[in-house]
Structure formats: C-alpha cells, structure tokens
C-alpha cells in the first residue's frame, strides 16, 4: 500500500523525523490562512497524487506543473485554486490523469547538501538493512552500480533493532559533524522506529538534506507498508486512498480477489499466484497479450468467481477469456458453478476457454457439459493457450460482440 506525501509527513511528525514544516489543504482559503502562519520566505505548493513526475505534469484545465514555488499567501492560494478539483496528467498517470483533491503547502528549504537514506526489509538476510549514500537525489540503483563504495550498508539485528551506535556510524559515513551529526543520528533512529512500529516493507528518504541554516530534514519520502500487517495498524490502513487505485483492482480486493490490470486483450481467471503468472506468460508465448493477472485464491466461493467474471468482462479491451484451474484446495465443481452463474448474471458474450484439472475435476466438467453453455474446453494448458489466442485473434471488437 502506498500513501500520499502529506500522510508520510504526518507520520514523520508523529515519530519525530525532522522534516520541512507543512500542511495539507483542500480549499484555496485554507491555503491562504495556512501559508500566513509559516515563517519562511518561500513556500512549495504540491498537488497530492500518488504518481511521480508531478513537477513536469499538466492539468487538464491547461494549468502547468503540479509543484510550484511561491512567495506570498495570495500566490499560494491562487495556485491551490488552480490545482484543486482538477485533473493532473504526468508521465506516470496515463492520459486519464489523477484528480487532485488535496494540496500540500510546505516551507521552502534552502538545500546545502543532499543525501540518500533508506531502510528495507532485506529478503536474503531476513532482517532490516539501512542503506545510506552521500549521493542524494539520484537513482540509488545507478549509484550502486557505478560507485558501490559510496553506499553504506548497515545490517540491523532482527530481534533487537537498530542500535544508537549504528545510527551514529551511518551519520558519520554521510559526513555529518557536530550538532548536525547528533541531529542526523536521531533522525535515523526515529526513522527506524517508524519502519519498525508501522511494519514497513521499505522507507526511502530521497533526498535527506542539510539546509543552509544547518538543519537536517527528511525532505521527500516513499513509504510502503506490509498489507498483511495492516490489520493491526488501523490508522495506516485509514490512509489508503482508493481513488488512487485502478477501480477494478479496488472492486476485486473487496471480494478478496487478487487482480492486476494489464494492457492486453485476453482475460484470465486462475487459481494460485504462480499458475496465474504462468498463464499470462503462456498466452504471450503463443502470440497473445494478457489483459490481467487474476488469482481467485485457494478457497474461492461461487460468489467470488461470479464477481471475478464481472470484473474481467468490464474491461472493454478484452476479446476472449481463459479460465485455468488446477484444483487443490479449490474444487473444480465450485469453479464450474461460478462460471455457470456468471454466464447467467453477466451475460458473457465473449469466447471462453476453460481448462479444469485437479480436485473434483469430473464433477466440474460434468456441470459445464450439462449447462450447455457456449464455451470451449481444453485438454491441457498448451491447448488452452492456443485456443484462447486463436479466439482473441478471430474475434470482432468487443462492442460488436456485445450487439450480437
């Protein structure tokens, strides 16, 4: 799960991670009154959407730039007015853009030096790892490749966490001295507390900055949380902004289905994440393009399967559907019943290829045969992939098949 910049700022304040002063607003009037209370000479006004590339983005009303530096409260208010309730298009949003509902106004900071600081849960060592570099504001993967000696890696003990001496080692490596050394060490320790207590997968501060007035700030950050741990972090779960997500993915998650929208025209419904990925791959292998990843899980109900078909058939790009089930926990007769119900309730007019194998496969096949639905069955995975690619290539555009 991702959160907005202003929400990351709120978490930073909660855990004592020093950052530039700022507030989030939803109206131009609020923008004016908030800015009047700030002390700096310049302010940054930033549109709050999850996508990157905001600075270079353009609003659909013609206003340019999702990030502006202003000098007065009036200016801040005008910029906020232009951004709020308008749609910002950046290279990451796609042409449909994102509606801006909130704007962050922060004190502008004079940067003297930029650094990189991240805490990740390292898979290989099964422990947190702090990564720090003097090369701030840059792509860390490139720094790691070109000059690995510039990167400091501090392994953290999984049971006792980051120790104060370790935060001092990191601050020292970054080159901080005196008061700033102490400030940076404290910031790193507090950032670790945030990582630990909020159960993050990753906290990336890029850049961490030393300001001209000598303060150490976490200026911009990317936080990602472990969705499996959100049940014990209500306040973080409340930060989820579903308007930032693909509506089909939101609808799927409401029914505990794992759905990810892709660009192709062959929809697939599969049980199990590995088999779902392999099904996408085999569609591509035989010359087709998968429209989605969909794992209905190990114990899907009839209702979930019906909902899954609704989501798949809502995608106007889709020309054919491949159902690939290898029953373990999942019983093939449940999938078959779900397919039959989906045909009844969603009026599926697309070609569908069904491949069932595993637990209760005979019962499932029998149900499908008796239903006399217009679907093709496949004997194995290769057969299924070839049939669905042929069906997608042969089919008319979706709008025509709906009319028929």
């Amino acid at each position, binding site marked *: 799960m991702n959160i907005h910049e202003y929400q990351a700022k709120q978490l930073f304040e909660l855990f004592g991670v020093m950052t530039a002063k700022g507030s989030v607003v939803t109206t131009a009037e609020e923008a004016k009154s908030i800015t009047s209370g700030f002390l700096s000479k310049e302010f940054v006004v930033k549109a709050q959407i999850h996508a990157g590339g905001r600075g270079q983005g353009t609003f659909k009303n013609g206003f340019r730039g999702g990030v502006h530096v202003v000098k007065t409260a009036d200016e801040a208010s005008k910029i906020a007015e232009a951004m709020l309730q308008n749609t910002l298009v950046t290279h990451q949003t796609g042409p449909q853009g994102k509606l801006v509902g909130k704007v962050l106004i922060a004190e502008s900071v004079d940067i003297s030096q930029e650094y990189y600081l991240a805490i990740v849960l390292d898979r290989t060592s099964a422990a947190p790892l702090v990564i720090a570099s003097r090369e701030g504001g840059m792509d860390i993967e490139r720094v790691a490749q070109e000059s690995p000696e510039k990167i400091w890696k501090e392994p953290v003990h999984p049971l006792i966490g980051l120790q104060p001496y370790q935060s001092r080692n990191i601050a020292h490596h970054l080159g901080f001295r005196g008061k700033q050394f102490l400030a940076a060490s404290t910031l790193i320790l507090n950032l670790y507390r945030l990582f630990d207590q909020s159960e993050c997968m990753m906290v990336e501060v890029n850049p961490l900055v030393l300001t001209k007035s000598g303060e150490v700030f976490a200026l911009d950050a990317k936080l990602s949380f472990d969705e499996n*741990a959100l049940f014990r972090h209500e306040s973080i779960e409340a930060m989820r902004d579903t308007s930032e997500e693909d509506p089909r993915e939101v609808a799927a998650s409401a029914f505990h289905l794992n759905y990810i929208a892709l660009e192709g025209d062959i929809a697939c419904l599969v049980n199990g994440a590995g088999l779902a990925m392999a099904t996408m791959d085999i569609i591509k292998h035989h010359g087709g393009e998968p429209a989605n990843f969909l794992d209905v899980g190990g114990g899907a109900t009839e209702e979930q399967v019906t909902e899954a078909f609704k989501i798949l058939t809502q995608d106007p790009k889709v020309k054919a559907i491949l159902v690939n089930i290898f029953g373990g926990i999942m019983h093939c007769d449940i999938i078959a019943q779900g397919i039959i119900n989906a045909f009844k309730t969603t009026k599926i007019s697309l070609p569908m290829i069904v491949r069932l*194998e595993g637990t209760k496969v005979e019962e499932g096949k029998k149900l499908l045969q008796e239903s006399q639905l217009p679907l093709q069955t496949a004997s194995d995975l290769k057969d299924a992939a070839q049939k669905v690619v042929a069906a997608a290539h042969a089919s008319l555009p979706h709008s025509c098949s709906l009319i028929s």
Partner: protein
Amino acid sequence: MSVLVDKNTRLLVQGITGKAGAFHARSCEEYGTNVVAGVTPGRGGEYFDHKIPIFDTVLEARKITGCNATMIFVPAPSAADAIVEAATAGLELIVCITEGIPVHDMMRVKGIFAESFQNPPILIGPNCPGIITPNQCKIGIMPGYIHKPGPVGVVSRSGTLTYEAVWQLTARGIGQSTCIGIGGDPIHGMTQMDALSLLNKDPKTEAIIMIGEIGGSEEEEAALWAKQYCDKPIVAFIAGVTAPEGRRMGHAGAIIQGSQGTAALKQEALRAAGIAVAPSSADIAETLITLLEKQ
C-alpha cells in the same frame, strides 16, 4: 529413502479444529499420513473425528504422542507464534501452510531460529502447499492423487504451478521422489538451494524440477550452488515473464523491484549454470524428458 518425510513421520496438526485445518488433516490421513495429534488452545482433552487427541499446547502433544513433524493452519495473526511454539517444543519439521503472515513476524521467527537453536528445525513455508513423498506421506494441501512414486524431485515457490508440473510428469508415467513447496512469501524457511541440496543427497532422486518466480534472488543463488555441487540434471521454470515492475503478483514475494528479480535475469543465471529452462509452463515435463534422453 526420501526427503524429510516418509511412512515413519508422526504428524501433528496445529489448528486442527479450524475449517481448513480439519479438511486437510482428514485428507492427509486418507492419503496415508500418520496423523497422531492436533493442537487447538482451549480444546485440549477432546478428540478430532473421535480418534485423534487434541492438546492445548504443542509441548504436551509432543510428550504424549511423540509427534516429530507439524502442519500449521493457525490464522495469520497467530501463525508466527505457532511456528516458534513448535520449534521450542522440539519438532524437527515444521510445515506452515498459513498465508498472509506479516513479514516482520517472519523476520522475528527467523531471528529466533538463528539465536536460540544450535540446530534449528526445518521450516517449510509459510504460504506454501507443503511436502509430499508419494504413497508414503503427505503434509499439506496438494491433491494427493496427481502424484506417483518415482525418480523426480520437485521444488517450487508456487502451489498450483507445482501441481501442474507434477501432473505433467504423472501423465507421462514419470513419478516423483519428494515434492516440496517452499512458499511465496518474501521471508520464509527452506530456500530453493536448501531443497536442491536435500534432493541432491537423496539416492531415490535422479532428476530435479525447480519452479521459481519473479522476486528476490533465490533462483540465482540456487543456480550458483547447483553449478558447483549438484550432480543431478535440473530443469527449471520461472513464472512472471509478463509481470509488470513494482507490483506484487499475488504472492507477497513475487515482485520486481527496480531491475532486480526479473524472470529474464533468473533464466539467464539458470542457463549460465547449465540448467535447462522450460520455455513455458506447459513444457516442464517435456523439457525434462528431452534432457534425460540427451544424457
């Protein structure tokens, strides 16, 4: 011989009275697994299906029944605790089926294993289908009937994709020595390399199928190990060639981060180690047959 589980395995089921726990405890027993005990806190003294004793704690179950392996179906919020309980009670093999365990919990489990045990128990999973030695012992949720005893060892990060590979083998008359699902979480117990090493040592295993997917670097590490130490032919398959960057593909551990963990990188590492890579999931068994014919 076989890997880790056989006719002599005495199985405990943690979470035996839950819906999934009960269903799969029965299915394992029907397959022939020796299910000797269950644990559900608060239900100690009762019997599961009128015959399998239920205990409040794993320690008590172990003392009374001599169970040496456990299958965990405890819900995700308490599953890490159940793993550590089983480990401290002295069980040698822990198979955790539970999906959705917080990753910080698993990090602490591994930390405790490393700190508190001279010889930590073997942990398979979590978020895995389990382990099976055909016709001897099934610990997990895989459909038993697709398996058949034979010479091929299988290790995989995915459940249903393993069934797919096993079914392709069985349909062609090729049996399996032991099949291990190591699970799809980013932090888990047995690794691909650990499994290869066990299968390499097993005299009943003549060839190995390794199924991986995007995310992490276990396949790359296993490839390096195999190049140097494995003397059995290996066929690999990697799922997720078409997966987009930065998305978790169902499994918490199946994610491409930056340029790391892509299917292409893994396939390259496997080929460089002399491992045959199946071009699609439908060709896993055929790739193995072709490889064995060449040798």
